[in-house]
């Protein structure tokens, strides 16, 4: 899978979200459980406490009802006592249910026993009272029942104490649980912070080291060494894209500098050669006394070589103007058909000298272009002269022009020797010579096709070439058709 900072950040984010969600769920469940356990314990213990207190009250009120009955003999007190008794039995049952510890259970058992004794004492007192022994009844009420009541009261107090201590214990355990929960939340939170921190640290370091790499490479690039390239292996997608863009730029720069280097070397060679000829001719002429004819010959050679230099310089200036200052070249809108017919007419006079057959296929309807007619005719003559140069006597040159949609295609085909696959990409290079010029001829300094291409580009068009050795060449010019 391709490496990417975006993917790394996303993965880090997902891990973080997962850890956060995990911690939150854990904390939530723990809190709820703790809460439930605590509330249950509290509820049980509090109700036990309440039960014990009510037990005490019930015991007391039973005695109260009985003594009231002894006072006025009204059976309503006994009825109320029975009601209370039922309630008391209920509470006792509840207390034995909520009793959890053995100590509580023992107390409840004791209370049960004591209560039975209390009841039997009460029963005995009532019987004595009913049989008229008021004294005996009161005696039981104040002594026997009292003793049992005291004992029961004590048991209830014990029961309350136990429950209170249970509540205290559960408070402590809750506190412990809260601390545990805090640890449970804090530790993953710290882990998350650590993970996120180190992730961003590593990510930043990775980005910075890649950037530093690029910076070092680009700092070491200068005119003398343009061959350095930024490493693109083992890089994240985004960095790889940046590195590749920089490498493409360096590639283009290197090519441009290579081209300029070669071009300057070519200019040097092309200008020094006529100078060397002029100097050599003059030196040789002056080495000894010669005939006037010899001097004339030397001087006319010098003039021709000077003209050659002038032509090179003019062409270079023209190319520089096309390349760097094309705004000053005027354009006009014109019909291409009569313009091209005129070129054909002039080309006929050129081919006639070499016995080459020139044909032209020109459309009849008007084709409007916007451009500089002088430069465009130079473009076509450069192509035609090039064709004449490489086509042997008896050969053929075809000129064709036809509109295709928004563009006009103009071809110059010849039956010449053709261009080898090796030379084909270089024919538009400046100072590319297929073969050495003859100084007498007006072309052949190696700039003709380069100028033609620059003129086509100036007109927002282009030139392409198709050729193979022995099969002739076809140069095709593409120009945009003008729409008003």
């Amino acid at each position, binding site marked *: 899978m391709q490496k990417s900072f975006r993917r790394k950040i996303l993965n880090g984010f997902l891990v973080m979200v997962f850890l956060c969600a995990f911690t939150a769920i854990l904390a939530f469940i723990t809190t709820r459980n703790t809460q439930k356990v605590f509330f249950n314990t509290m509820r049980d213990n509090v109700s036990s406490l309440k039960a014990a207190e009510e037990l005490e009250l019930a015991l007391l009120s039973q005695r109260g009802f009985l003594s009231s009955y002894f006072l006025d003999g009204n059976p309503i007190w006994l009825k109320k006592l029975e009601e209370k008794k039922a309630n008391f039995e209920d509470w006792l049952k509840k207390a034995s249910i909520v009793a959890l510890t053995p100590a509580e259970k023992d107390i409840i058992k004791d209370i049960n026993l004591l209560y039975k004794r209390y009841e039997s004492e009460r029963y005995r007192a009532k019987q004595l009272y009913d049989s008229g022994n008021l004294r005996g009844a009161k005696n039981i009420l104040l002594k026997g029942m009292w003793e049992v009541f005291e004992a029961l009261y004590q048991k209830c107090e014990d029961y309350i104490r136990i429950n209170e201590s249970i509540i205290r214990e559960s408070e402590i355990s809750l506190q412990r649980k809260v601390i545990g929960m805090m640890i449970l939340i804090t530790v993953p939170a710290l882990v998350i912070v650590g993970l996120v921190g180190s992730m961003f640290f590593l990510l930043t370091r990775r980005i910075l080291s890649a950037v530093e790499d690029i910076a070092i490479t680009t700092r070491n690039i200068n005119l003398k060494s343009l061959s350095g390239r930024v490493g693109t292996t083992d890089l994240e997608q985004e960095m790889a894209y940046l590195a590749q863009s920089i490498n493409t730029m360096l590639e283009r720069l290197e090519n441009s500098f290579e081209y300029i280097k070669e071009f300057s070397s070519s200019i*040097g*060679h092309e200008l*020094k*050669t006529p*100078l*060397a*000829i002029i*100097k*050599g*001719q003059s*030196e*040789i002429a002056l*080495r*000894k006394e010669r005939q006037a004819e010899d001097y004339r010959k030397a001087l006319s*050679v010098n003039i021709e*070589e000077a003209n050659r230099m002038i032509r090179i310089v003019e062409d270079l200036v023209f190319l520089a103007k096309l390349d760097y200052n094309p705004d000053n070249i005027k354009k006009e809108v014109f019909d291409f058909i009569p313009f091209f017919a005129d070129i054909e007419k002039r080309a006929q006079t050129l081919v006639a000298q070499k016995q080459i057959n020139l044909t032209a296929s020109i459309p009849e309807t008007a084709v409007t272009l916007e451009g500089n007619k002088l430069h465009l005719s130079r473009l076509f003559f450069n192509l035609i002269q090039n064709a004449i140069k490489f086509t042997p006597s008896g050969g053929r040159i075809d000129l064709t022009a036809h509109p295709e949609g928004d563009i006009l295609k103009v071809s110059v085909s010849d039956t010449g020797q053709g261009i080898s696959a090796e030379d084909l990409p270089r024919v538009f290079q400046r100072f590319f*010579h*297929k*073969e*050495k010029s*003859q*100084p007498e001829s007006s072309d052949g300094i190696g700039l003709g096709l380069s100028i033609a291409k620059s003129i086509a580009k100036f007109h927002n068009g282009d030139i392409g070439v198709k050729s193979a050795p022995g099969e002739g060449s076809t140069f095709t010019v593409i120009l945009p058709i003008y729409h008003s």
Partner: protein
Amino acid sequence: MKRILIIDDERRIGQSYTVLLTEEGFEVKHASSAQEATNFLIREHFDLVLLDIKMPGVDGKVMYEVIREFDRHMKVIVSSVYPIEEQVQSILGASAYHNKSQGVDILVDKIKEVLSGGDSKERE
């Protein structure tokens, strides 16, 4: 009479050097392409070759190797418009190097030196 072969695609250089060296008492032939030069080397004997570097098609560097194939001891003077340091970088081991811009007197001196001394190699 010592025989010299001039290999130079510039016709006028060939012509003027032929006049010059003939007047200096040498027998001179001019070849303006590698093909022509090879034909001369096969058929005739030469004491020295005057070799240009930049030529269309087969250039001076390749031509130098071809000459060495014919005769390992052939005296070769490289003659070009490039500065001598650049010429030495292009073709290593020639008997001498001549910058055409320096003029013909220096060329004649170098030719005589190489032909008489046998070993007057310009060293880096």
